């Protein structure tokens, strides 16, 4: 699983948090080992959060799931919270890339929004633990990350719509809130695999502040 991601991680310096000592070491094999350790730790954090929430997660849980020593954990992260931030930030970046690529391939306008939204739903469906970490736990543990996630999503939405600003009366911030709850509810019901089925509703919500209720509903109907 880790191997499929490692290709995109050649330039790891920016990704590594303040404790990114691993990347500073030029010796490649060690660097690779450290990187896969780090990925295992982040995955373990997501798994544990999904099972017992961030509050209930201990370093021992993460260390056990990642099959690493406690000392190795602390080589990468100063504490549980720092590890959580890294997991949330990286997954957020991953979603941003996914949406960006899918949107760019689809061109612009509503097609781009739909392609980006579908790509995000599919990625969330494939990584339900990370999805719940970002959508369920992050608002509590790291609200600033949610705000960043929101402005990222809204910026991308506006770019896709050709620099269009919200013209209808609905608030884009609240549209993000609607989308967040829609997805979180599905995750809480244990139905992550069915997330892509939410596409018409997600599209409706995303378009609502830009084209208004009737047009957004029309677009949702078209792909239902």
């Amino acid at each position, binding site marked *: 699983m880790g191997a499929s991601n490692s290709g995109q991680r050649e330039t790891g310096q920016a990704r590594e948090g303040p404790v990114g000592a691993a990347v500073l070491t030029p010796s490649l094999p060690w660097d690779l080992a450290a990187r896969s350790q780090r990925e295992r730790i982040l995955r373990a954090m997501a798994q544990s959060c999904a099972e017992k*929430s961030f*509050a209930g997660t201990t370093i021992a849980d993460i260390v056990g799931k990642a099959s690493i020593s406690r000392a190795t954990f602390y080589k990468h992260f100063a504490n549980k919270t720092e590890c959580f931030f890294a997991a949330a930030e990286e997954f957020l970046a991953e979603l941003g890339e996914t949406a960006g690529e899918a949107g760019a391939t689809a061109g612009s306008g509503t097609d781009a929004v739909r392609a980006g939204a579908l790509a995000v739903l599919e990625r969330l469906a494939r990584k339900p633990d990370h999805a719940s970490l970002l959508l*369920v736990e992050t608002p509590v543990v790291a609200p600033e990350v949610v705000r960043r996630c929101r402005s990222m999503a809204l910026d991308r939405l506006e770019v896709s719509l050709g620099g269009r600003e919200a013209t209808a009366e609905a*608030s884009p911030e609240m549209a993000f*809130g609607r989308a967040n*709850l*829609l997805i979180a*509810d599905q995750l809480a019901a244990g139905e992550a695999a069915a997330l892509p089925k939410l596409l018409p*509703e997600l599209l409706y919500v995303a378009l609502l502040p830009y084209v208004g209720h009737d047009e957004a*509903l029309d677009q949702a109907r078209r792909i239902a």
Partner: protein
Amino acid sequence: MSERDDERRPVEGPAGDLPKDLHLWKLPRGRHGLPRELVARSQRERLLAAVIRVSAAKGYRASSVADVLGEAGVGRETFYRHFKGKEDCFLTANDALVADLEKRVQRAYQGPGIWPERVRAGLAVVLDWFAASPEIARVMLIEMGTVGPIARVRFRGTFRRFTALLEEGADFAESARDLPNIATLAGGAVFARVYEEVALDNGATLPGQLPQLTFELLLPYLGEEAAARERASAERELAERAGADAAQP
């Protein structure tokens, strides 16, 4: 008990007896002539009020049973006669608050008027509630998320019971056929705003946001035009309220 069962568990608590001002719960210490049963009841209530105050001030994770005991002026043995531990006490207090809020919202929602008006009335109760006590708001929304998996499931269940109130709207809103999760889409807008304001300690601004939030809540059901009519009613209601407040000495 599975998580699902827990979610469906009907919420019960001393909701009807819950004073608006939690500080009233703190009885003077020492001898008083109250019957034993009444004392036990008030000890329990004092503990519930204390866990809310302590969690709001220090955060749930950072607070201990000892903090709750100190705040309530109750002994450890008494605490464990009523609750299994800190989490049990906290969740019981939260359940009581939720039940009280639910009852008030239901009452407003089941009042007179057409559906959009009743939705607005219910929403006004929610906004007033979270504005009235920053402590309670913080505990119910923010601290509740730090407790653990049981609290998380219960929190979801609460959100779903509130959005279920909107389901009546699906009977006549044409859009509901294309938006199967319309209640979540509608309620999600309000929830996101309320949560954010409380997290930023801006809960007091919520009642003033009634017009905009009424609009956002009704929008997926009614579209802009009809939702804006209800927004205008909400604006009038706020103006009237402000007028009435100004008239008071």
